[in-house]
């Protein structure tokens, strides 16, 4: 299927349900090297985003992504909440004027999502952060758009790339946030932020019918 503005509440309901389901797992994962609040942040942030879209049906894709980003910023003002809010707001800008989420729009969205988070979080690739999964997601979708893939095919490929990228974060040593204090000890553990990115693209892919 191809997504338009009216499909966004459904997409964010998916995100909400999945983060609610993964809440405990994310708390435990984050607790290994951080302060355990990631599961709460994500569950709270995406519940607020879904509620905001239910309350006011978006007129355009950009509108809906803006509404979602603003709701996350308000409900979840921690670092990852702020980064997610930034991702959706920047993604919204990239979707300005787009009627449907074709593969090119999907590629623009994820590139802007990644760039916004990279800029705000000031992390580099390889620092063991959400960026290490977002970057291959954006790159994969861009390549799929070039190759003429459908949105479902492109997001499916991106979800596969995300899984591999998340696995690869286990080999990295944390350089950012509280996890950086654990240094060597962070090895062997998959990155909590990367897990969030992986969930996002998996649910996006599922919503697109892949």
């Amino acid at each position, binding site marked *: 299927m191809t997504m338009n503005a009216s499909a966004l509440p459904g997409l964010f309901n998916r995100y909400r349900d999945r983060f609610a389901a993964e809440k405990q797992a994310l708390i435990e994962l984050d607790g290994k090297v951080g302060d355990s609040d990631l599961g709460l942040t994500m569950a709270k942030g995406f519940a607020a985003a879904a509620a905001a879209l239910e309350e006011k049906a978006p007129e355009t894709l950009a509108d809906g992504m803006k509404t979602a980003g*603003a709701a996350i*910023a308000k409900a979840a003002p921690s670092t990852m909440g702020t980064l997610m809010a930034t991702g959706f*707001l920047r993604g919204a800008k990239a979707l300005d004027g787009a009627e449907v989420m074709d593969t090119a729009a999907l590629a623009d969205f994820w590139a802007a999502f990644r760039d916004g988070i990279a800029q705000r979080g000031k992390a580099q690739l390889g620092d063991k952060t959400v960026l290490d999964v977002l970057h291959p997601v954006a790159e994969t979708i861009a390549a799929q758009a070039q190759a003429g893939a459908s949105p479902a095919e492109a997001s499916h490929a991106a979800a596969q790339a995300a899984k591999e990228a998340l696995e690869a974060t286990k080999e990295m040593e944390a350089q950012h946030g509280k996890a950086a204090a654990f240094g060597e000890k962070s090895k062997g553990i998959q990155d909590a932020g990367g897990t969030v990115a992986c969930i996002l693209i998996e649910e996006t892919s599922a919503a697109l019918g892949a």
Partner: protein
Amino acid sequence: MKKFLNKPEDFVEEMLEGIYAAHPEVTHVADDLHCFVTANPVPGKVGIVTGGGSGHLPLFLGYVGDGMLDGAGVGGVFQSPSSDQILEVTKHVDQGAGVLYLYGNYSGDIMNFDLAGELAEVDDIETATVVGNDDVASSKPGEEHKRRGVAGIVFLYKVAGAAAAEMKPLSEVVRLTEKAKARTRTMGVALTPCIVPEVGKPSFTLGEDEMEIGMGIHGEPGITRKTLEPADAVVDEMMERIFAEQDYAAGDEVAIIVNGLGATPMEELYIFYRRISQLFAERNVTIAQVWIGEFATSMEMAGASISVLHLDDELKPLIERSATTPFFKHIAK
């Protein structure tokens, strides 16, 4: 820890309740004590919003008032306010002419103000940002963008506030504030540490006979730690670093802030100023304006900072213009 507290976790909220009770000219919005705004917004004026962690009074909220700022996001002790709190303040102070975000160079504040700016854009409010970075000790020349903002930001508040009060457009307020920023330098020295109420113990220790030159207002490391010297020698060392950065020619004018960090008596600040005035007199530079007292503190840290703004024909009248806030009063001569 020896402090006047009820519960440490209520420190910020109860401080704010006291300020609102004492000063009806300021209030809060969005049912959140941390969203601090003027009760008397001026229609059509550029709004100026600052913010940052608590524990630095009168910084940041103390400068909200006539002729200076319009609002402040108030964070926990040494913590940034949230982007949503900044957004609520922004919405309130926007009078149709846009909003300037003016705050210190700290990563949490930058992240939250930048996001607030993006959220404000969704609401069709134009924002611009100037980030104060006056602390000479926190990075070398050429890397000014890495420097922290400390007491010198009060000059920026004064210049931006005066420019906005004259109903200049946002772009002009930004230009003048940037100019003041480029011409402001601060050096600080600390004698004792500070205590965050919820932590309950000092964040670092300094020996009984030691001082740290260039320490930050949260206890960030400075340039050198050494045996405490006579006041004149301390001032000379601090001013040497400021003089090395700015070209003061005979006949030039400056404004000075001698700032106590929370636990240093006014007497000692005047002993500092005595030497500062001698050093400028030797250079035939006129001190056109001086403020001595507490402007940017760090809880009960003992220590002082010296901020210098190199004036010019444009900045001088803005510095001299009247301003009245709960913590800052200036009457034009």
